[in-house]
């Protein structure tokens, strides 16, 4: 999708002042860059350990899970919907993969990689199933995405609890955690590599494939999309399935990291991922949203939490700060979208 320019292109041919530049950045990237700079400066002043390579890698690795889920959420939002069940998907994929690996490890104690692969596939399969149900409910039965995914969240959580009896599934192969949880390849943690891989795929999919463009069209105006020969229902369903798959990957990575399949994983993911998307300028009305900005948004949330933890800001205040930041980000985004789309 080509990027959009505002109506009164600043006639900056002759003199591109600093203000113009700021405006340009703001219109293209939103407030995120500014908030990031402010946050980084503030936290560096508050804690000398904030701006260390060590901590930054730490921060990125922590953010991987939210970034991934936010990417999935972004697909649902662009399509004009919501996915409140991402947290449940994380939990279900974690639980299913862990149970599968546990069972298989007994039968094939030597073929660790086979066990891991099959376990991951089972987890992803379960995630996909939830995504398909979500998508079918929204696209075929016309249930509002809010309710559909809220219902699925409840259903999935019940099932995950049932499967594990409430107790985390442990005794997973150590290799899983060693590689996908804490492994390092070429100096970069494996979870970050996985995230980069998925980011690259998603970037191509969204910007260089017909499917991506169709997704934007469906979210922007489903009727127009239909009249333009786009098969709206398959696009919608695949958006939810893809969202679920990405959330599932996040669930698998979390399983690897915590070395357990846990029905309580991902409890706050749904709202946090929506917050990350919205801070990143994704419209809740569909059709608008850029991958780069969402990644920034998710990392921003992680960064603020990390910074506040390092600066040893009390937990109560942290909760308040996050709420305030969310609102501020959206107020500015309103201003920006008014300029760009007159919405």
């Amino acid at each position: 999708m080509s990027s959009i320019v505002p109506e009164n292109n600043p006639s900056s041919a002759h003199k591109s002042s600093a203000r113009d530049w700021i405006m340009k950045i703001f219109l293209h990237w939103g407030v995120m860059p500014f908030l990031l700079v402010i946050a980084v400066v503030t936290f560096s002043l508050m804690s000398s350990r904030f701006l260390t390579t060590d901590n930054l890698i730490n921060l990125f690795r922590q953010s991987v899970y939210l970034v991934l889920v936010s990417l999935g959420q972004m697909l649902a939002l662009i399509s004009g919907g919501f996915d409140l069940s991402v947290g449940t998907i994380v939990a279900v994929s974690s639980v299913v993969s862990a149970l599968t690996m546990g069972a298989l490890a007994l039968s094939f104690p030597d073929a660790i990689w086979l066990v891991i692969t099959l376990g991951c596939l089972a987890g992803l399969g379960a995630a996909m199933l939830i995504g398909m149900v979500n998508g079918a409910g929204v696209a075929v039965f016309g249930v509002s995405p809010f309710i559909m995914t809220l219902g699925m969240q409840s259903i999935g959580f019940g099932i995950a609890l049932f499967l594990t009896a409430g107790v985390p599934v442990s005794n997973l192969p150590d290799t899983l955690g060693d590689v996908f949880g804490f492994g390092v390849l070429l100096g970069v943690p494996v979870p970050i590599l996985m995230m980069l891989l998925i980011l690259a795929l998603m970037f191509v999919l969204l910007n260089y494939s017909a499917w991506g463009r169709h997704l934007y069209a469906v979210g922007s105006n489903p009727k127009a999309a239909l009249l333009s020969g786009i098969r709206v229902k398959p696009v919608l369903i695949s958006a939810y399935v893809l969202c679920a798959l990405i959330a599932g990957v996040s669930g698998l990575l979390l399983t690897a990291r915590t070395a357990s399949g846990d029905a309580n994983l991902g409890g706050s993911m749904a709202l946090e991922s929506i917050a990350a998307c919205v801070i990143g300028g994704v419209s809740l009305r569909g059709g608008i949203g850029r991958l780069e900005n969402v990644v920034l948004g998710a990392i921003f949330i992680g960064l603020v939490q990390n910074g506040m933890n390092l600066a040893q800001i009390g937990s109560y205040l942290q909760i308040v700060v996050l709420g305030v930041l969310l609102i501020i980000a959206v107020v500015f985004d309103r201003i920006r979208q008014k300029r760009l789309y007159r919405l």
Partner: protein
Amino acid sequence: MSDVLLSIEGLSKKFPGVRALDGVDFELLAGEVHAIFGENGAGKSTLISIIAGAQPQGSGIIRMHGEELRFSSVADARRHGISAVFQEFSLAPHLTVEENLCLGEERLHQRFGLLQLSAMSRHASALLQRLNFDIDPQRVVATLSRAEQQMVEIAKALRAKLSVLILDEPTASLTERESEQLFATVRSLKQQGVGIIYITHRIQEIKRLADRVTVLRDGKHIGVVDAATTTEAKLIEMMAGRTVEKIYPSIAANPGRTILELSQMRGGVGIDVDHFVAREGEVVGVAGLVGCGKSELLRMAFGIEPMKSGVVKLDGQTIKKPTPRRMLDAGVFYLPPDRREEGLMLSASTADNISLNALTQQPIHFRSGFLSLSAERTVTRDIGRRVDIHPSNMPRATALLSGGNQQKVLFGRGLTRSIKLYIFDEPTVGVDVGTRSAIYYLIKELCEKGAAVILISSDLPEILHLSHRAYVMRSGRIAAEIDRSCLTEAAVLQHFF
């Protein structure tokens, strides 16, 4: 009679990036119909929305009966007797007709401040009756057709005593009969000394109704002229700043193979059509009253309305179950009547809107399955040139474009693929004369290159001037098929009722 009701001096209004009004003067006499004429985006709607209190005033002075006023809200303007029918509907779709007719001016019990439900209900019925509008006041507005909604809208503007009535393109979705009803109402109000501001893109209406015309261009006041003595050409020249020789081009008829053939079409709200054809190299008009099913018939053929039975043949081949995708792939393009509702992705760029239905096609779609953004840019730039959209508009959100330009974007979308049959449903709704002419020339070009064109329109002159053959529909059936040689206003109208 020459009582100055409303006078405006030097009114200016800026939106971020646009100067919508630039020192506009305006004067309205009691008992006068004063038309405002101008291109899309000239500032007509902005002007009247300020007068009606819907937008805050920029600089400038508004006087009513000589007294300087500043309206803070629509309710405020209403208290001064100014009432408007806006271009965008001001109806709440989930409320009933009756509730809408009283909206914002509910009647309350003196003592408890509660609603007087029965009095309001009586008032609403009386209002509809007085205007001769046949609408059940209990119906939910969302279930009304666009024309019926327009009638409710008009009734709503007339619900209280008023001294200034503003009508912003009130006939855009009405056909002859409803329009006539409206004109009668306007004349009777005029008789009572009400001043009427009337915005329209249809010059015939100006001729029939208006006393004076104020012409706007790019937010500037160009002049006030007498409606009776000013020629059409002069008006258009003032509006466009150049002369437009001929609005309607003459299109060479060169009918060839049958492209579309519909038979035994049943479905929807009583569609019952036995035979309908369109051939390459001709323009087929489809006329009829509002709600006669002229859109629905072809929407069924295009696969967007459910079809009970019927055979859709394209190029001799039967299309089993038409869907928009299949029809497009078979070379049919449908231009919807409501560009915001069904046509545009408002938040996406102009270029993205143009290329929308070509993303699965060469050259944009590589064989590898990926898109070539540079090919896309080339394609959209060329099309932009063909339909005359300024290159600087290509990366802008279509929400920012004027109505006429938005319509051109939709036309552009039809040029990205090889199309055998164009179905244009109300292609010029709310489009100014200049752009409209451009659209007509585009239709000419397409037709003369050998495409079949179906023109569905409520604008009778458009049908009369452009089509080589016309179907007139009445209550879901084809009432007549008229050849160019017999295509006159009288001939068509006679089959309407």
